[in-house]
């Protein structure tokens, strides 16, 4: 369990990190929280020639909430987000952050690293796609802002150039009458979810759905926006029937593969169940109720 030999470089700024990435070439990698990269290196499934550590770049872990926005520095740790005011205001963020892996991973793992890793089973991708999210990136050509939908291209693949880094994740605050929920079913704490479902919806005073996003995790090469499921709710009254139709549409939208977490057809059943529940929780939260939700585990 020893990584292949690599050189280690500590960047003092993102500009320096970008320069180092250029100098050290294609086999160099950025080290943020390291919760995916280090295990992969120890198992020799990843063999970077060089690591560029950005953990010492000042100010990169800040969480701020200026007007109508939430700004997460790339190095904001899951554990910090879990207890942030931002997450208190937007419950879906707490659902996600509080259940990522285990305490050790949450203390070290970062939101920027998670998005840049673009693991199909990652929690943040599915969660943040239900909100207006953009990724602020920095590279030799300067800064650019990329909508999250555009940022993740494929499994483990983003639009980032080799010498480009994530600086910040900006999330637009949803309106007051909006509610969301992220539900993930995991077998045990430290493992990736079998299926996850994220829903954010906005209601008018009569439970008519004015806006909705439904995103599925772990059941495709990237998180999947279940647009047909959204259409089942959009402009309609959210009740048992429409929720059931949306859940069925989500089941169809999933493209799961069979593995140790479950067979493909079971995962589809789980998608329907989680989407149904996530909509239910999102509706109650949109009405202003406080509801506990998040990760569920085998056994309890």
């Amino acid at each position: 369990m020893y990584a292949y030999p690599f050189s280690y470089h500590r960047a003092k700024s993102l500009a320096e990190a970008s320069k180092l990435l250029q100098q050290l070439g294609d086999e160099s990698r950025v080290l943020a929280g390291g919760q995916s990269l280090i295990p992969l290196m120890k198992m020799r499934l990843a063999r970077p020639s060089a690591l560029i550590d950005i953990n010492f770049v000042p100010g990169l872990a800040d969480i701020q909430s200026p007007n109508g926005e939430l700004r997460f520095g790339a190095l904001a740790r899951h554990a910090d987000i879990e207890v942030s005011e931002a997450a208190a205001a937007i419950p879906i963020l707490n659902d996600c952050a509080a259940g990522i892996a285990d305490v050790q991973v949450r203390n070290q793992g970062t939101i920027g690293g998670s998005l840049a890793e673009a693991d199909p089973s990652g929690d943040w991708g599915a969660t943040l796609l239900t909100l207006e999210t953009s990724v602020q990136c920095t590279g030799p050509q300067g800064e650019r802002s990329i909508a999250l939908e555009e940022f993740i291209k494929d499994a483990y693949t983003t639009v980032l150039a080799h010498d480009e880094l994530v600086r910040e994740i900006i999330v637009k605050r949803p309106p007051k009458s909006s509610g969301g929920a992220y539900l993930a079913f995991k077998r045990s704490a430290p493992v990736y979810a079998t299926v996850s479902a994220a829903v954010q919806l906005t209601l008018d005073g009569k439970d008519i759905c004015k806006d909705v996003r439904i995103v599925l995790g772990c059941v495709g090469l990237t998180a999947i926006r279940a647009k047909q499921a959204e259409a089942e709710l959009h402009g309609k009254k959210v009740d048992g029937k429409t929720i059931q139709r949306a859940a069925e549409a989500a089941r169809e939208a999933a493209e799961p593969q069979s593995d140790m977490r479950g067979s493909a057809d079971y995962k589809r059943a789980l998608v329907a169940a989680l989407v149904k529940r996530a909509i239910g929780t999102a509706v109650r939260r949109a009405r202003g109720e406080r509801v506990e939700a998040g990760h569920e585990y085998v056994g309890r």
Partner: protein
Amino acid sequence: MATTLRTKTKKAKAPAASGPAKWVGQPIRRKEEDRLVRGKGIFVDDQKLTGMLHIRFVRSSYGHAKIVKVDVSKAAALPGVVCTLTGAEVKGMVKPFIEIGPDVGQKIADYPMAVDKVTFQGDPVAAVVAETRMIAEDAAELVEVEYEPLPPILSAEEALKDETLVHPEMGTNRNWHGVFEYGNVEKAFKQAAHVVHIGRLHFHRFSSTPLENNAMIAVWDSRSERIEYWSNNSFPSFAAQFLSPALGVGIDQILMKSFDIGGGFGIKITNYPYMAVCALASRKTGGLPVKWAETRTEHMQASAHGNERTFFGTRVALDKNGVITAIDSRHVDDCGAYPRYEPLGCVIWAQVLPAAYRVKNVRIDMNQVVTNKCPVGPNRGYSRMQQLWFMERVLDICGHTLGISIDEMRLRNYIRKDEMPYTTPNGCVYDSGDYAGMLALGKKLIGWDDWKKKQAAARKDGRWIGIGIGSTLDSGTNNFGQARIINNFAPFSGQSKAAIAKLDIYGEVVVSMGSVPQGQGHETTAAQVVADVLGISPDLVRVKPGFDTEQNAYTGHTGTYASQFAVAGLSAIHGAAVKLRKEMARLAAWALKAKEKDLEFGIGAQGPEVRDKRTKKSINYWGLANLVNVNNAGMPENLWDVTLNCRHVYHAPFQIPDTKRKYGNLTLTYAAQIHIAVVEVDRETFQPKILAYACVDDCGRTINPRIVEGQVHGCTAHGIGAALMENCAYDSDGNMLASTFSDYTPITAVNMPDLLYGHMESPSPFSYNGAKGMGEGGAAPVHTVCAGLQDALYSSGVIIDDSHNTGDSIFHALQRASSGGFAIMVRVEHPRASR
């Protein structure tokens, strides 16, 4: 019906010369805890010896393949690599390991590394030895191996066909076969009111995932021609018996040592093939120490798994009241690629042949096959849990089918308290126990009646809630004579443990026990026993844990396995302490000019002492030790035999079983676990949830209730993990699918229900202290959780036919049920009604 022979087992008498029980029975904190929680434990991988080298194995990526070529030249050329080993090379250095099984089993050539072909994924084909672990890892990647894949055998059914052979030299995949038949099975079926036929049942493969993987250091000293091991093997005297003929060295030239071990649960018993390779590597390097510290992936792929067992064509005869009168079934055990400790599992299950039930007529046709999976090793609850799970499934399926509630079904079939000691149809003697009483306590703990009402209400709402009972026996202190039922020529029998209690030369009480604790708290319970014998406190007793050929006490049975320390281990320690007390009394009587009968043991102003009740004169331990070791002029000749260094060997009162009839007492004590689980299956996610869980244990007199309760918690977690999460699954190509914790998902705290704990004491008449071993817990939750699922889903037409159940498997079971799966699985006849 032939009269049943009662096996004679002598009742144990407590020796007279022993103080009152002050410490035994107390929940004192563990002596070893301080060292362990502060990170001061001494584990194999912490040891760094001068000149020490590191070995890394190159392992097969195939489950079954011919080895065409192994090229180690690039690895050997890497700077820092000291030597390499290949299977072909190893073959020239050793003899194959001995096989316990008779006949075809004797034909297996089990070398410590694969020679001509690989038989499971992870099978070691080559090894590199280097100056650092990192270099070894780099070098291992440079070894080039060419394979020619063969079709893998991955199930009992496939193995039985004998179309592809795992070991062609065997001529079959059937490693062992025997029929265990007692009473008059056919007559019972003829007279039955109901006969229930049950289709294929399957007990899955799982392991124990100890925190510390296998680890060892070997030094083959060319000067002394001795091999010194520091390892975490949990049955070193057994390993030495395998290593000695294979390596061609006398067994007295193999020195074994162990200290702290981070869990074992039995599966470290079979790490001796790696011990052989490490010794050969040390020899090849001219006697330098060679360390191997297994990685988790290696551990999951290639250390040892628990036995997998499939049950075919089960027939159950019952009378009109639902009392089971006969069972007839065919069981096929899968031991993986090499038998190693097997085929002992083919008899060990028979320690609990009728489980907790009174059934007299039993016929079980037992087969064991080899397959292209990781070899098995004794895994906590070893071989008995498969039988207990089978019997519990039988009880539940019959109860549900006949409309008898599962608690009533058990009460009608349980062996009763007033029948104890109870002789089973195959001659085992259940020493004591009150299963009905335990069930009553469990029901009270969990609130049975209340849950029954909740269950009925929830069913009306369409919820799937089930209440399950698991009745489990933890048979402890095994009789190795049962190996004769497997192989009549097996040169071992009985059970023994040794201990040394001494007063060291400056008066310190030191106990060495040779057991190999892996978290069981032996240092504490040993100190409690000795403290009571000498009238002192446990903190004044220094206990040397672990195996040490040169320094600690041992016999050929010494190790920590088969739930026996509280009986065999403590009996040896108690015996040694009593001998020491007698010597101390003789010595003190002379020193104090007193009569032995007037002496009392205790703690005085100058520490532990022996005093004359009449004169109040006393001598402390330092003084006593001084008389023998330092200041002994003038000692009378009749005291010259006093050494203050007393060894005692405990022999369990066993006979060799009748091998033809497969009849005899196979274990000394039977601890029991009755668990109750309330389980809900979510109608949308199909995920099982445990709503309430109660465990009641009875292990006779407890030495330390805190340690007992800890064991119950650990066993319960292990069993719930096995029932719902952990599975050593293989795909159809023979790839082990759970080689990391992400895939194997060992149970974590978030998966655990809160446990309600209850305890009863039915003292064993066969141990001096009334205790029973209880370390294995018999996988109680596996039976219990399955029973709960069965209760939840019976009305939906699901028969729980596997010991491993997930949301996924329940989802598919419900789909099968809706297409008539139930009818295929269970069929009922009423022979007497038809007449």
